[in-house]
C-alpha cells in the first residue's frame, strides 16, 4: 500500500502541474468556451455540432492560432466564430485565414455592413456579388498567401485600421477607364521571375497578347468602358484555376463567360466586324445548337472546343486574322490534310474564303449528312459550282457519285443492322455479322472523310473496303438464314418421327387394352 501511494503521489503532482499549465491541449480557455456555449434566440447553441467537430479535429497549432484570435478579441461573437468554422477549411488554408486580419475583420457580422461583409449566405439585393466568402477561400491567390493585401495593399497582420489601402490604384475615374487593371495584374503575371516562384508552367505573355487583340485595342486605344479586362473573364475574388469546374474560364463555362458580353445586343450595339458589318450576337445560341456545343455542354465531352480553342483567349482574334479555319485541323487533321491536297484549296485561297467554315459554318456547325452532296435543296456543292465552276460539269458528277455510293452503303448498314438483330432474336450467331458491320461502318466514316479530297479515286480507295464488307455481310446473312432453315428442318423431322412413334404407341395401347 505504501509502495503504491509513494508511486501514485509524484504521478498525481505532475499531472496536476500539467493541468495548471497554460498551453495544455484539450483545455479550452474561458473566452472561447463562452462562445461555444452561447445560445441563439431559439435557445439552441449558435455553434452547431458539425462546427464543433471541425474545431475538435484541428491540429494543436491551428487551435492555438484560433484561441489567439479570440483572446485578442478579433473574434468576439459566436456567429462570427461559426462562420469561420463552417468553412471547414483544410489545415493549409485555415492557417492562412487565421493570420489574415482583413478576412477575420470583414467576416464579423456585427462590425460590417452588408455592403462590406464577406459571407457564405449573401443577402439578396444587399450583398454585392463579389463578397461571397467561399470565393475568397477558393481563390488560387489566397492559397499562396496573396489574399486581400496582395491587391488592396496594407498589412494582414496588423489589427489597426489603416488608410494605406488601394494606394496603388488610380485615385479617380478608375471605374470608367479600366485600363489600369491590366498593368495591375501584369505587375506579377508578366514577371516571369516572380511567377516562377509559384507556377513555372504558367505563361507570362497574357498582356502582350491581349494588347494585340480587339479587346485590348477597345480598352487601351478606344478607352471604351464596355471593353473586357482581366476581371471580366477571370472574376475578381474567386479566381480559380481553369481546371476547376467552378472557374469562369473552365472549358464548359467559357461559352457563357464570353456570351455574357457577346450575346448582349445592347452591349454590342454600334460595334462592327473588321469588314464593317455589325457585330453579330447570335454566336452563343448557334454554338449551343452545334455539334461542338452539344458535345461540350450536353454530353460533358471536354475534348470539344469552346470559344477560346478556336479564337484564342488572351489574343482573341488578333486584327489581321481573317479566318480561324486552320484551327479546325488541330482535331480534324485527316479532313484538313485531304482538303489541303485537293483542288479546292487553291480555289478557296483565290476567293479568300474560309476553308472549313464555308461549307460547315463557323458557330452553327451542324451534324453532317450525305444529302449535303446530293443535288437537292440541302446541296452545298451545286450552289457554289453553278456560280463559280460552270465549266467543270464533272464536278457535279463527282458529287452525285459520292452521294450515291454513301447512300447505298448507309442503307445497307441500316438494313443489315435490323436484319442482324432479327437473326439474333432467333438465336443465331450474329457476331461475325456485327464484326463485318463494324468494318462497313469504319469504311463509311473513312469514305465520308475522303470527300474532302474531292477526288473520285481517293474516295473510291476509302469506299472499297466498305463495298467488300457489304458483300461479306450478304453472304453471312444468307448463311445464317440457311442455318435457321436447317434448324427448322431438323425440328420438323424430329417432330414427325416423334409423331409417328406416338401414333404407333397409341395404337399399341388400344390393342393391349382390348
Amino acid at each position, binding site marked *: 500500500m505504501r509502495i503504491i501511494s509513494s508511486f501514485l503521489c509524484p504521478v498525481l503532482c505532475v499531472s496536476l502541474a500539467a493541468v495548471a499549465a497554460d498551453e495544455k491541449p484539450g483545455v479550452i480557455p474561458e473566452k472561447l468556451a463562452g462562445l461555444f456555449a452561447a445560445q441563439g434566440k431559439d435557445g439552441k447553441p449558435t455553434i452547431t455540432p458539425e462546427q464543433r467537430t471541425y474545431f475538435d479535429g484541428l491540429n494543436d497549432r491551428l487551435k492555438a492560432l484560433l484561441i489567439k484570435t479570440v483572446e485578442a478579441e478579433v473574434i468576439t461573437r459566436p456567429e462570427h466564430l461559426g462562420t469561420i468554422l463552417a468553412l471547414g477549411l483544410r489545415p493549409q488554408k485555415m492557417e492562412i485565414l487565421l493570420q489574415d486580419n482583413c478576412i477575420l475583420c470583414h467576416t464579423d457580422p456585427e462590425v460590417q455592413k452588408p455592403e462590406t461583409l464577406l459571407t457564405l449566405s449573401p443577402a439578396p439585393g444587399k450583398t454585392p456579388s463579389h463578397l461571397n466568402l467561399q470565393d475568397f477561400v477558393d481563390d488560387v491567390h489566397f492559397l499562396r498567401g496573396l489574399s486581400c493585401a496582395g491587391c488592396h495593399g496594407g498589412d494582414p497582420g496588423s489589427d489597426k485600421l489603416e488608410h494605406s489601402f488601394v494606394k496603388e490604384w488610380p485615385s479617380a475615374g478608375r471605374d470608367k477607364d479600366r485600363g489600369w487593371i491590366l498593368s495591375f495584374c501584369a505587375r506579377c503575371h508578366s514577371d516571369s521571375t516572380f511567377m516562377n516562384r509559384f507556377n513555372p508552367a504558367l505563361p507570362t505573355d497574357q498582356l502582350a497578347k491581349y494588347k494585340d487583340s480587339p479587346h485590348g485595342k477597345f480598352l487601351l486605344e478606344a478607352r471604351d468602358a464596355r471593353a473586357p479586362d482581366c476581371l471580366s473573364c477571370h472574376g475578381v475574388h474567386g479566381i480559380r484555376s481553369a481546371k476547376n469546374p467552378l472557374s469562369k474560364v473552365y472549358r464548359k463555362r467559357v461559352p457563357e463567360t464570353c456570351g455574357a458580353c457577346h450575346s448582349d445586343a445592347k452591349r454590342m450595339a454600334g460595334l462592327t466586324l473588321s469588314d464593317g458589318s455589325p457585330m453579330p450576337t447570335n454566336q452563343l445560341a448557334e454554338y449551343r445548337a452545334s455539334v461542338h456545343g452539344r458535345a461540350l455542354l450536353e454530353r460533358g465531352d471536354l475534348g470539344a472546343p469552346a470559344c477560346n480553342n478556336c479564337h484564342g483567349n488572351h489574343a482573341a482574334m488578333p486584327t489581321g486574322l481573317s479566318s480561324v479555319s486552320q484551327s479546325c485541323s488541330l482535331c480534324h487533321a485527316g479532313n484538313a490534310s485531304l482538303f489541303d491536297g485537293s483542288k479546292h484549296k487553291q480555289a478557296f485561297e483565290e476567293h479568300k474564303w474560309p476553308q472549313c467554315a464555308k461549307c460547315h459554318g463557323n458557330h452553327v456547325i451542324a451534324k453532317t449528312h450525305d444529302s449535303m452532296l446530293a443535288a437537292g435543296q440541302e446541296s452545298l456543292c451545286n450552289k457554289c459550282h453553278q456560280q463559280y465552276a460552270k465549266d467543270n460539269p464533272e464536278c457535279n458528277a463527282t458529287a452525285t457519285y459520292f452521294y450515291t455510293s454513301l447512300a447505298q452503303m448507309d442503307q445497307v448498314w441500316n438494313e443489315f443492322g435490323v436484319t442482324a438483330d432479327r437473326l439474333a432474336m432467333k*438465336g443465331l450467331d450474329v457476331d461475325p455479322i456485327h464484326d463485318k458491320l463494324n468494318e462497313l461502318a469504319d469504311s463509311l466514316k473513312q469514305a465520308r472523310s475522303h470527300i474532302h479530297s474531292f477526288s473520285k479515286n481517293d474516295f473510291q480507295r476509302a469506299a472499297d473496303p466498305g463495298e467488300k464488307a457489304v458483300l461479306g455481310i450478304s453472304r453471312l446473312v444468307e448463311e445464317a438464314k440457311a442455318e435457321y432453315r436447317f434448324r427448322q428442318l431438323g*425440328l420438323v423431322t424430329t417432330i414427325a418421327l416423334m*409423331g409417328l412413334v406416338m401414333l404407333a404407341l397409341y395404337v399399341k395401347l388400344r390393342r393391349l387394352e382390348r
Partner: protein
Amino acid sequence: MSDSGHGQGWLGWLDRRYQITPLIEFLRHKEVPKGPHSMVWYYLGGMTMFFFLVQVVTGVLLLMYYQPGEATAYESIRYLTTKVPFGWLMRSVHCWSAHLMIISLVTHMFSTMMLKAYRPPRELTWVTGYILFALTLGFGFSGYLLPWNKLAFFATSVGTDLVKSVPLIGNWLLQVLRGGPDVTANTLYRFFALHVVILPLAFVSLIGVHLLFVQRQGMAPPLGAKVAPRGMRFFPSFALRDLLLWLVCFMVLLVLAVFVPYGPGIPGMDWELGQKADPLAPAFPGIKPEWYFLWEYQLLKEFPPHLFGLEGPQLCLLVVSLLLGIWAIIPWLDRQAQREQPSPGFSDFGWGAILFLTFLTLKAWDIGAMEPATSGSSLKVISRTCAWWTIGAGAVIIGIRWLLQSSRQSSPPSASR
C-alpha cells in the same frame, strides 16, 4: 435354381441372381386409382420428373463446355451458344425445361392439395414433395446466375439481399450465400457448387424417397375411400399413356427451344445472354427476378418500411414463413380430410393461395423502371387489368361458394368433390 416363374430369358437370369420375382409381380399388379374425378392429375408428378430428367441430361451436356469463373463463365456460354454445334439447342432446352418443370411442379402441388392426396397415410409424401419444391426454386435461383450476365448479376444481388432480414443470423446467412458481403466471383463458385452438386444430390435422394413412398402406398385414391374401388393397370396402360404425354412434352419443349430460343421476352422470362456482368456498373432500373419469384418480390414491395415495430422486409419474411409453414403441415391440420370428408375450407385456402400468387405475379409485371403505369406500355396496362380482374373474379367465386356452402349446411356432405 430358383423355384419362381420367369425361368427363361434375361428376367430369369436376373431372378436367379437377385430374386426379382416379387418386384415383377408388384409391378404387374400396380394400379392407379380410378374415380369420379379426372385422371389427368395423376400424370403431373411424372411430367415434372420428365422435365427434371431433361434438365439432368442437358445440364450434364452444358457442363462439358461451361467454365465457372469471372473471366470464363460468360465467355464459355457465349462460345457454347454461338460456335458449338447445337449448343444453342442445349442451352435453350435447359432454360425452357426449367420453366416448364416449375409450372408442372406447381400444378402437381396444387392438384394434390385440392384432391387432398396429403391425407393419411400420405403425409410424408406431401412433406417430401414440399421440400422438393423448395429445392427446385433453389435450382432456379442458383442456375440463373451461372451465365454471369448483367441481368443475372443484378437479379441475384436483389434476391440475396432478402436474407439479411432473417433475424439473428441474417448477416451471416447473407455472407455464406454470397461468399462475401457482395455478389462477386465467389458467389458464382458457390452457386455453381449448389446447382451442380449439392442440390442434385439432395434432389435425387428426396425424389427417391418420394417415389418410394408412392410405390409403397400407391397413388392416392379419391376422397372418401381409403383404398381405390377400381384402378387402371400401371403396366402397360398408365405407363404407355405417361410415355405419350412425355413425348408431347418433349415436342412442346423442342418447338419452344427452336422458335423462342431466348424465352418469350416478358420480364422475368427472358434469358438472352446480353452483356457480361460488370460489378462496378450501377444497376439498371426494371430488374426483376425470374417469374416464379415475382410474387415474393412484389410482396416485399407491398410492405411499408416499418410496421408493428419491425422492418418491412422482416415482417414480410415472417408472414411468408408463417404461410409456408402452414402449407407444410396441412396434412396434420386438415381434420376433415383425415376422416375422408371433404374440406372446402382447405380447398378455398388453396384457391386463395393460387389467386394470391397470380395477383402478385401479374402486379409485379406491371412495375417497370420505377415509372407509374401511366407510361402507356400496353403490357403494363394488360397486366394491371389482369391483376385486378383476378382479385375481382376470385372474390366473386369465393363469395358464391360460401353462399352455396352455407345453404347446403343442412344436407350431409357428399363423398367426393
